[in-house]
């Protein structure tokens, strides 16, 4: 029986020899050795630059390592003893690079490099306002930029006089973002002033009137308000009916003459509001149909010169010339894209568009002196990108589809370099602050308002 006992003892030691592996990395810092700081790189960079500090005996516990450029603390991502990897955030300014490593005894090791880090301002995609809960859900929540939420932001209109953004939550509400006060409020929701499905907003040429279009669900009868307006002078609070008509998706006041053009669903009819000579009431006049018998929504965008308008309808962008004689839009030609969708940057009808949505004309300094100095920036919802259409008809991708996932998905929520890093999720609304050079983008899926800006 003793043999058994001895035997069991022998094997007992065997079991305990195999210990559990530790899942947590241990700190390899050696307090007995000096910490050496040799260099850092790169010497200059913009927001999101990966900055490396080289040397020796840094340890691997990043909670002890602090890196500063001037007074701005950087995010330390990793350290392997010989290198520290950190991340340059926005709003950094050029300054000395300083590294502080906390020691056990409480006397930190500190080093400031002689060379400064030169901070470069760059164009990046950022997030203005909006967030979601851990399930990805959101709803209409008013408040400051920390807390405010959006449920389905689809359209954005920038009003430069009061530095305010109007965001249309498709079929739900129109929100107001006060960029100065950094507050979000709700201007109007469904049900108020008989609105049923709010689609888009536009500003009059002098930017003091906000037109609201409503897909009121009617197909034929003119019993409901299709377009309404609010006035800056009334702080946009009171809603006035503009025209009674079946469903309206977008409005396009002429930038020079202030005549109102808008659209309906059936056959993609483009209409003009014409005052009744007797009563002065505005009556619709159907100018032409874009899609033949197709019933589809479309969006109209006037060139700032008033010479022509783009009509964006899903995978196609039409160009309609404004006839200064008849003061009407002419039947359009297909200018870019085709009936089949896709994602191809090319010229004119060779280009492919997924689903074009809101667009905005932005002056391109490179065209100075030419007949048309504007590029048309528009959202391509299905292709998760912001694209441009040049006056010559060249479609190219401006932002989005950066850093795709390994399975090729380009939809997502990533800020950063517009093409290399940033991703969008169903972007449909875009407007531009020409003075501050900021694009505002509304994304339905991310439920956020993003910006593309040079810091």
């Amino acid at each position, binding site marked *: 029986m003793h*043999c058994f006992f001895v035997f*069991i003892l022998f094997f007992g030691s065997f*079991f305990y020899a195999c210990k559990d*592996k530790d899942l947590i990395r241990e700190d390899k810092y050696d307090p007995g050795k000096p910490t050496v700081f040799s260099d850092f790189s790169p010497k200059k960079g913009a927001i999101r630059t990966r900055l490396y500090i080289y040397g020796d005996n840094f340890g691997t516990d990043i909670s002890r390592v602090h890196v500063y450029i001037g007074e701005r603390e950087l995010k330390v*991502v*990793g350290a392997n003893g010989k*290198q520290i990897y950190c991340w340059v955030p926005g709003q950094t300014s050029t300054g000395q690079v300083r590294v502080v490593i906390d020691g056990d005894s409480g006397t930190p090791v500190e080093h400031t490099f002689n060379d400064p880090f030169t901070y470069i301002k760059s164009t990046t995609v950022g997030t203005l306002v909006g967030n979601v809960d851990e399930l990805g859900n959101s709803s209409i929540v008013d408040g400051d930029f920390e807390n405010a939420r959006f449920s389905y932001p689809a359209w954005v209109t920038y009003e430069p006089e009061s530095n305010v953004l109007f965001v249309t939550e498709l079929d739900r509400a129109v929100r107001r973002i006060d960029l100065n006060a950094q507050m979000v409020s709700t201007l109007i929701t469904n049900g108020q002033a008989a609105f049923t499905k709010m689609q888009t907003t536009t500003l009059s040429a002098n930017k003091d009137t906000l037109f609201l279009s409503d897909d009121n669900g009617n197909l034929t009868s003119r019993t409901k308000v299709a377009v309404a307006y609010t006035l800056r002078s009334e702080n946009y609070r009171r809603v006035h009916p503009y025209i009674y008509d079946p469903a309206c998706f977008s409005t396009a006041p002429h930038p020079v003459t202030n005549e109102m053009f808008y659209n309906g669903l059936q056959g993609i009819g483009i209409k003009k509001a014409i005052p009744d000579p007797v009563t002065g009431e505005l009556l619709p006049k159907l100018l032409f149909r874009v899609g033949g018998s197709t019933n589809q929504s479309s969006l109209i965008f006037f060139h700032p010169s008033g010479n022509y308008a783009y009509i964006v309808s899903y995978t196609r962008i039409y160009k309609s010339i404004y006839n200064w004689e008849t003061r009407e839009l002419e039947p359009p030609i297909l200018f870019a894209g085709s009936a089949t969708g896709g994602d191809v940057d090319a010229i004119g009808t060779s280009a492919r568009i997924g689903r074009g949505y809101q667009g905005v004309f932005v002056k391109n300094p490179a065209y100075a002196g030419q007949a048309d100095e504007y590029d048309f920036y528009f959202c391509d919802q299905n292709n998760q990108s912001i694209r441009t259409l040049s006056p010559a008809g060249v479609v190219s991708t401006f932002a989005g589809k950066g850093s795709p*996932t390994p399975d090729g998905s380009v939809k997502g929520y990533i800020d*950063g370099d517009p093409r290399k890093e940033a*991703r969008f999720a169903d972007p449909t609304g875009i407007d531009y602050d020409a003075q501050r050079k900021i694009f505002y983008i509304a994304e339905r899926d991310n439920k956020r308002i993003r910006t593309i800006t040079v810091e």
Partner: protein
Amino acid sequence: MKRIIFILIAVAGVVAGASAQDTARVAVTITGTVLNEQKEPLQGVTVAVKDQPGLGISTNENGGYSITANKYQWLVFSYVGYEQQEVLIKDALRINVTLKASEQKAMDEIVVTALGRQKKATVTGAITTVDLTTLKTPTSSITNALAGNVSGVLAMQGSGQPGSNSSEFWIRGISTFGAGTSALVLVDGFERSLTEINIEDIESFTVLKDASTTAIYGSRGANGVVLITTKKGKMDKVSINGKYEASYNTRTFTPQFVDGYTYAGLMNEARVTRNEEAFYTPEDLTLIRNQLDPDLFPDISWMDMFLKPGAVTQRTSLNFDGGGALARYFVSGSYINEGGMYETDENLKNYNTNANYKRWNYRANVDMNLTQTTLVRVGVSGSLGKQNLPGGTYNEIWASLMGQNPISIPIKYSTGQVASRGGAEKQNPWVLITQQGYIENWENKIQTNVTLEQNLRFITPGLRFVGRFGYDNNNKNYIRRMKWPEGWIAERQRESNGDLRLRRTITEQLLTQTSDATGDRAETLQGELHYTKTLKSHTLGGIVQYTQEKKVNTSNYGTDIMQGIERRNQRLAGRLTYGYQSRYFFDINFGYNGSENFATGHQFGLFPAVSGAWNVAEEKLIQENLKWMNMFKIRYSYGRVGNDYIGGSDNQPIRFPYLAEFTSTAGGYNWGDLESNNSYSGLTYSRIASNTITWEVSTKHDLGLDFSFFNDQFSGALDYFHEQRDGIYMERQYIPDIVGLRGQDPRANVGATLSKGFDGQVKFSQQINKLTLTARGTMTYSRNEILEADEQYSNYPYTTRAGFRVNQNKGLVALGLFKDYDDIRNSPTQNFGRVAPGDIKYKDINGDGTIDDNDIVAVGATRYPNLVYGFGLSANWKGFDASVLFQGAGKSSFFINGFTVYPFSQGDWGNILTDVVNSNRWILGENEDPNATYPRLSYGGSANNYRASSYWLRESSYMRVKTVDAGYTFPKVFTNRMGIKTMRVYFLGTNLFTFSKFKMWDPEMNSTNGQAYPLAKTFTLGLTVNL
């Protein structure tokens, strides 16, 4: 339990009664010495009074003994390796005994056959008797010791998971493509599982291979039969055997995967070589190499992280036996604990998530002589097996361990969230192995049998009746307690301030549970009449056996009445044997079986077999001239064996196919008008009656030779077999629709296969002074061919099943890789998507200029080996013994596939084996070798390259050092002082070295992608003690 108590009381009563009888006599003390033939004293010889098992003693070192007994009782002297001697006590009080060394001759060897024990010399059929000392396995299942040890058996171990690591085996290979290819296993005459049986309880292990030996099993014998008898008590003083062994299990092969940096480089290569953008920037690669970003580029070796270097298995068994002339007993118990290799969290104190298998076995066999001519044997045995598994399923864990690439996710993000790519196999292995709860499986088996043997010599000498009744009960239980934390994945880019941007991939699962239980019971009733008669040189024998069996299973049948009916079998079997002078033998066997699966008129099948043997060595001429020839027996058998198992699972077989099933039609017919619906549904067939199907019949020929030469130094057996299986059940799937069967395929006896091969074993032993050397070898080869199958006509005969092996591998024939675009232009069109240089080029078999499914031909062999062999050497010298067994398998091949061998076929899901990097891979501009081992990489899978073809066919033949063992038996002088009869310590190593061309994972493992629990390489230390 009641039964056991009853038996114990019965045994105790019998013993007590026996001793009470003898006390009236005169007690004397007998002394003496026991010597061997060399006049040396023998120590440790058991001296006992016959019929009084408690009174035994052992001789001392001088061979002396002293025992108290009554006059005219018998003294029994027994010692291992010597013949037992009995001496009657008369007046002399000193009895000196010389024991003769026992000598077993091949001629006298006893083998166990279907109808009882028989001298090996008289056997006319093909059977393999397994030397139990050669069956060595440290695992919980004896099936793992069969390959290479037992001639006629082809075996393969598919997984190393504790409790699921038993081998699949086939007798003489797979000989049908129909349902049921596994052998019938009978333990003590009852159908029982081989997996749970405790090896120390086995007395004999026999494999019945040909028609003459299996014909009496009729319906069940077509795939061969394994016969096991368990140990019974011997008329001797109590003998206690204990065994303890502990094994350390590592792995024979662990698939090796690349590190994060190599992975990222390959991924970029896979994209760039197909004109796609590189995925990782040079800066990303530097980060990966320097391991500076543990969140986005973690570089985890999942296999190393979650597989321990090894696990421990412990096994212990204890048995004792003894008894007297009236009753004898054998009682045993054993325990095994197989440890799992997952690296689990030791901090989980409340429950264990590691794979683990524990089993307790017990057995009690009691034989009682009720009268001079009546023997009753009672056997009770059982096992309780408990398997513990992690909450993630087996497939999920292995797919996850090999699917997660080294840089996709960390275990946890530095923010504290658990990283996960989703649920099931996309889950983090850490969650699957340690955080997802656990699964418990347990299986209880209780087996009870009673045998009555009545000698009917009062009717006529040589007549004997044997009746058996068995009642087996199994139940299986399963419970899975599961939960998991919420999982997150980081976007590839950080937020502008450097924080991680996490996206939730799976919501939290709170504790949930699934459970299942099934049970079955089997009853067997059997009666046999045996008759033997010897008239001068003629030996006559006859056996008639009647059997009825029923089995019922409750596997959640619900309202399925058909499955709830007991499955019954009835058969009458018999044998006639005739022998002349131990030279000529002739047997007739038959089985007459009824099956519930066939319609009246087709139910009964007669399965006869005839066999004969001629022992040439017994001829006068040979005996006089070739004295070295001890046995030379030529055997031949021919017979038919049936099968009535049509298909379906073991728990839910297809039953009563001769009956039609009906169901009501959906919708029905509208008898009303269009506006006023008045529909009535009718009845329609849901199964067409196949009322003429009957027995599937296997016609077997076997030509064999048993020999033993030079004083039994060289012995062996060789068999050639030829089996044709006809009338294999198949669904007739190609009946034209105009027949009007409404898509219900009837069954018919249409398939046929032919299987041919040989098996054999040889043994050679040599004594050099005190060194005994034994060399042995076995080989089994089987090749089958489908003669006929239910299939449609094809213009290309090579696309049919007929003419090829059962489970033949079929695929395209690869001609290497395309050299350049000219090569592509000048080759037949490949219709599997775009090809580029470096993609696989296929052979146009039918010459029609395109490569399509009509170019698929038989390539290689089958996954299951068609050849299994083994050879070994063992040596004994004084107390030392050592042996080695090499085992191999061949004539087998398989296609490798899946994300582990097709790099990036599922994008970034799937880790890359180091073999891809280390072997000759086609690289654009670097290594454009048309004969490279891996084609041009592609990201997201290449439909052209990743097809079953000879390019991906791998030879799975291997040879391995299956077991090595070395033991030392302590000298008797030393052990007897401790009261121990024998004591042996030993080392056993299994699967120590494996030689194979295939090196990615174990070639024996039945896996095409390596995603399986690896087979174990074990190092065992053990001790056996015999008291």
